């Protein structure tokens, strides 16, 4: 799989409260409605203008803070193609895998990518192609690949129980 998209770039320690504001966690329960509030307290430009296929590039510890899965769902339903970061917070990492939102840890690529760049991610080759060059990223550990290949955690669990 290969995706190409425009970059929205952010810094370190972006927390889930600014990715999906707490005030909507009770009132918005439809997945399809979550996308319109994505990053509202971080970057109103993103909230207004992000397009399907766009790629988020961030620093260390993306998604720290609250356990809310909406912080993944809102970007998934917004059509964000992938998140490349120097690192992800623990709960966010799990939630992203569970939701099937591609996340990539690639510190060198993050440093080279500028806001609004157009970049391509080749998942099969494990490469990120940027205006400043191509960067490779390590494949997911085998265990995690199994989850992704089955389409997320629940299908994986159902398969292991012989329900699929």
């Amino acid at each position, binding site marked *: 799989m290969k995706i190409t998209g425009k970059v929205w770039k952010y810094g370190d320690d972006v927390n889930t409260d600014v990715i999906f504001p707490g005030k909507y966690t009770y009132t918005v329960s439809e997945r399809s409605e979550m996308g319109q509030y994505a990053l509202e*307290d971080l970057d109103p430009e993103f909230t207004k203008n992000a397009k399907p296929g766009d790629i988020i590039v961030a620093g260390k510890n993306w998604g720290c803070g609250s356990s809310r899965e909406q912080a993944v769902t809102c970007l998934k339903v917004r059509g964000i193609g992938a998140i490349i970061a120097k690192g992800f917070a623990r709960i966010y990492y799990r*939630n992203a895998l569970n*939701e099937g939102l591609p996340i990539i840890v690639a510190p060198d690529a993050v440093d080279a990518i500028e806001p609004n760049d157009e970049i391509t991610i080749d998942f099969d080759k494990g490469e990120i192609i940027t205006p400043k060059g191509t960067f490779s990223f390590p494949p997911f550990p085998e265990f995690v690949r199994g989850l992704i290949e089955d389409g997320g955690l629940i299908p994986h*669990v159902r398969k292991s129980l012989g329900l699929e």
Partner: protein
Amino acid sequence: MGKTMIQKIIQRASGKEVKPGDRVWCNIDLSTARDFAGPNCVLQFDKETEGKGKVWNPDKIAFTFDLEAPSRSEQVANNQKLIREFAKRQGITKVFDVNWGIGQHVLLENGLVKPGWVILGTDSHMNLLGAVGAFATGVGNTDIVASWILGKLWYRVPETVKIHVTGSFKKGVCMRDLLTKIVGTLGAGGLIYKAVEFVGPTIENANLAERITLCSMVTEMSGKIGLIQPNGEVLEWLKARAGEEVVELAEAIKADPDAIYSEEYEFNVDDLEPMVSAPDAPDNVKTVREVAGEKLDQIHIGSCSNGRFEDIAAAFEVLKAADFKIAPGIRAIITPATREVMKQCAQAGFIEKFLAAGVIFTNPTCALCTAKHYGTLPSGDVGMSTTNRNFIGKVGKGSHTYLASPMTAMASAVRGVITDPREIIG
């Protein structure tokens, strides 16, 4: 090779020899959800199992209602009803409704948390249960639903960091100040994916409330779990609640003397002074002296970090030293963690004195940590709270929050500006 506490816990729960970096499936001892994300778990479980599914073990599932207790809107009320009906349908009897208080604390008080247990919850501060040696983690709704189907969940075995604490707190300084100091030193990503063991004489002598405070903010350093080996009065307390077997369970998770740690840190609290997390991040740490004098609009004492009886008693002592008077114009809110804590405060005669001083004393709940719940700040206001997060917009768009100890928060309420508690009780 020796094992750390978390390695021993995961080993028992997975039935496998493990080392850091391994990924294994663990049996879940208790899978909980609350009125936040709980309704999503219910809806997702019903969707995945086409409304016909039975949970793997109704006795190992619990619900707590804390973020919105009691409900503040029809939407929330309906969400809570959804949980009550699901529990009834599934035969889940451990439902702690809106009259109980903050989930982790309620589970602890009801003897549902044991050393070495693997526990899940839809609260990123579940890991404060490491205060009694339980391996509790906050997760999203999909992980919870998977555990309800399978009774297991996958874990990556973390590396362990050791934090060794020595010394005694001076008057006006407490465990919260040490915690703030640690968060400032290690930073928001300082413990990423890691387990922590808090050890040393200061920890061994700490009471349960202090241990909870310490473990509650491991999340704010991106850690997985902070663990403290149960001993002394804490173990006795636990035994009285959760049964004799906790002694054996605690023994089984003891770290080996030759266990391997990825990093070790030393802290001494003898000369520690009151600390704050300044706006707008927990790791933006300063001493209270550095920010003293800034005007505050509201202070709040409570939350899963600092809402226990000992925390409220410490605030009470500060107010007492100020002849039970707070500054005109400041809004002071105290929220006990649980109904049990509230009862203790009533029995100690605190509530009457707080009310006479004009303090708002609320029912047990998460209060300000819940967006749009009571205590929300208007744009431009500055608050101080004993909660664990002060991210921008969290307590109201355009407002800013300092995080501090119950003593610092009450001292600041007395003067109406950020105040070092030692000036009042010194």
